[in-house]
């Protein structure tokens, strides 16, 4: 907890209650009227310097009133031997008002200065330095006096001013939602499909002409059936599966929700695409063809995946 916290009358009420332990019902902020604090002249700044009248409201268990003498904290005493200074980076030079910088003072020094109970000047928060007196109002129950605030512009703080977002998206699974189904249209929230394998010209000969003719980003939601058959054969061989072309019938979609069963995407491999498509990150290749497909659970696989075909355009 800071040096001083709460509303500026809270410490006074707490002090009264602490020093009057015999009071069965304690004072609070709502059931009593606290008069405007009056200066009580004393020879020493550390003596009691303030008088107020506390009057019981009807809602309290008490009647009547009592005049109290207590001590408000003199800012000049509090900051004796010390400059009250703020160094702060202001991105866009703007007028700094007490409402803007008094909270910064409180945060730095552990105080609870109430901006409505003081007067302090505005200044233009640019690269200039300023000195502004903070003058406590007579209405403050806790503070009196005046203290100079020394303001200067600080360097831009990386953590506070520059990199304001520390919560990053971070790494993603290669066939995560953002890759295949960014809208979540098909409800696909799949696990990693183990079909990450490098293919070469020799592995799927039927696709290679298609690959090599593409040098820019192309998106397709379907794939020619002859290529599809070649691809199924290749996948079944590589992963010891028995997927049939009939189960991926594209046009009448007999398996329900998986309307798009196969497609391809040509992409140049740039830093952005490598980041967006984590599978497409093979060092040395300049382009990739991503074949994506969806199958059904009865084939023993999870239900989506990519096959990358790397090449140099």
């Amino acid at each position, binding site marked *: *907890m*800071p*040096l001083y916290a709460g509303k500026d009358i809270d*410490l*006074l009420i*707490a*002090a*009264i209650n*602490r*020093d*009057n332990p*015999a*009071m*069965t*019902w304690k*004072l609070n902020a709502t059931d009593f009227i606290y008069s405007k604090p009056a200066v009580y002249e004393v020879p*020493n*700044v*550390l003596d*009691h310097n303030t008088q107020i009248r*506390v*009057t*019981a409201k*009807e809602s*309290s*268990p*008490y*009647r*009547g*009133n*009592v*005049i*109290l*003498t*207590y*001590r*408000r*904290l003199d800012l000049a*005493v*509090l*900051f*004796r*031997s*010390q*400059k*009250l*200074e703020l160094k702060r980076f202001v991105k866009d030079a703007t007028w700094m008002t007490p409402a803007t910088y008094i909270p910064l003072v409180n945060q*730095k*020094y*552990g105080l609870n200065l109430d901006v409505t109970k003081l007067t302090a000047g505005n200044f233009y928060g640019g690269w200039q330095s300023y000195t502004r007196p903070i003058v406590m109002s007579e209405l403050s129950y*806790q503070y009196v006096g005046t203290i100079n605030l020394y303001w200067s512009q600080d360097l831009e703080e990386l953590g506070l001013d520059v990199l304001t977002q520390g919560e990053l998206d971070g790494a993603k699974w290669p066939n995560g939602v953002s890759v295949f189904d960014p809208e979540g249209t098909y409800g696909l929230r799949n696990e990693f499909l183990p079909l990450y394998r490098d293919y070469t010209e020799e592995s799927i000969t039927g696709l290679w002409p298609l690959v090599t003719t593409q040098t820019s980003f192309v998106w397709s939601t379907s794939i020619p059936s002859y290529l599809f058959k070649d691809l199924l054969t290749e996948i079944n061989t590589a992963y010891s599966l028995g997927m049939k072309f009939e189960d991926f019938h594209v046009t009448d979609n007999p398996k329900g929700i998986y309307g798009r069963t196969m497609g391809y995407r040509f992409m140049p491999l740039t830093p952005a695409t490598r980041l967006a498509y984590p599978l497409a990150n093979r060092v040395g290749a300049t382009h990739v063809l991503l074949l994506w497909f969806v199958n059904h659970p009865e084939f023993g696989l999870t239900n989506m995946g990519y096959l990358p075909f790397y090449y140099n355009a």
Partner: protein
Amino acid sequence: MSVFINSKQAVIDYINAVNAPVRITPTNVKLSKPYEVSGGRYATQTLKNTWSIVEPDGTPLTFRGRKVIFYNRLDLADFARFRPVRPLKAPKPTSVHGMLAAIQYYFAIKLSVDDVEDDPTNLDVDGVGTVTVRAKATSPLWIGSITFDVLPGGLPLEEYLTNITPDQIKYPIDNFKTGSSAAVIAYPLDATPYRDNLLIIEEGLLHGTGLATVLEAMLTLDTSSDGKTLWNSSVGSLTWSLEGATVFYNGLNEAALPTNPAFKYVIGIELRGDLTIPSGRFYLHYSDPEDASAA
């Protein structure tokens, strides 16, 4: 005739008001008990409801002889005619005399124990109920009775709030020699760069490498106080010296401590008692540094 003063004084004031410049007082006259006019010997002489005899009193006597006076005593029930009676807040009185102060406070009627009977109140355990205030036959000013609803409350604040000079709004250090507070100076300082050396300092006298670490931290981090170049560890130095300081706490920051919540650890240090500038206890704050070398 005021209802704010005691009954006997009220009657004497009434007498003086119509007999100027004669000034009688409770010390030089006495009043007999009051008598009802109705049905008595003066029933045909006055429309007032009360008669009484004024006789000299005191030593030496100021007056001689006696005088019969006629006046009206006030019927307590009439109170409701000029002011609506609302519930009376009183701290669970057991009898009428226990609530006379509350009646005076809330209704501005000063009744004394000589004016009203000390009948019991009719309250439940919570202090809610009624009370009937009944004038004594001997009251110089009052006749009749009135019944109030009673609610709990009405404690006289001045009887409970007796310490009227609370002193608990404290500076971090009350020191007539200086007033400057090490706690205020140290509050904004971030001693995280010294974390490893601070964390191993044990409670007790600050000495050796611990003293050197704190001294270096203060000289480096304190840029806004007079002590920014003056902190020292000189034996016997009366200003800005850490020599003889003691560590009273070193560990995790806690909400109960008067510390900066932005930090994980604090080390509490109490400066030597005869130090003049600054003085008192202060906390140096530090956290675990982030491991940037792994980046």
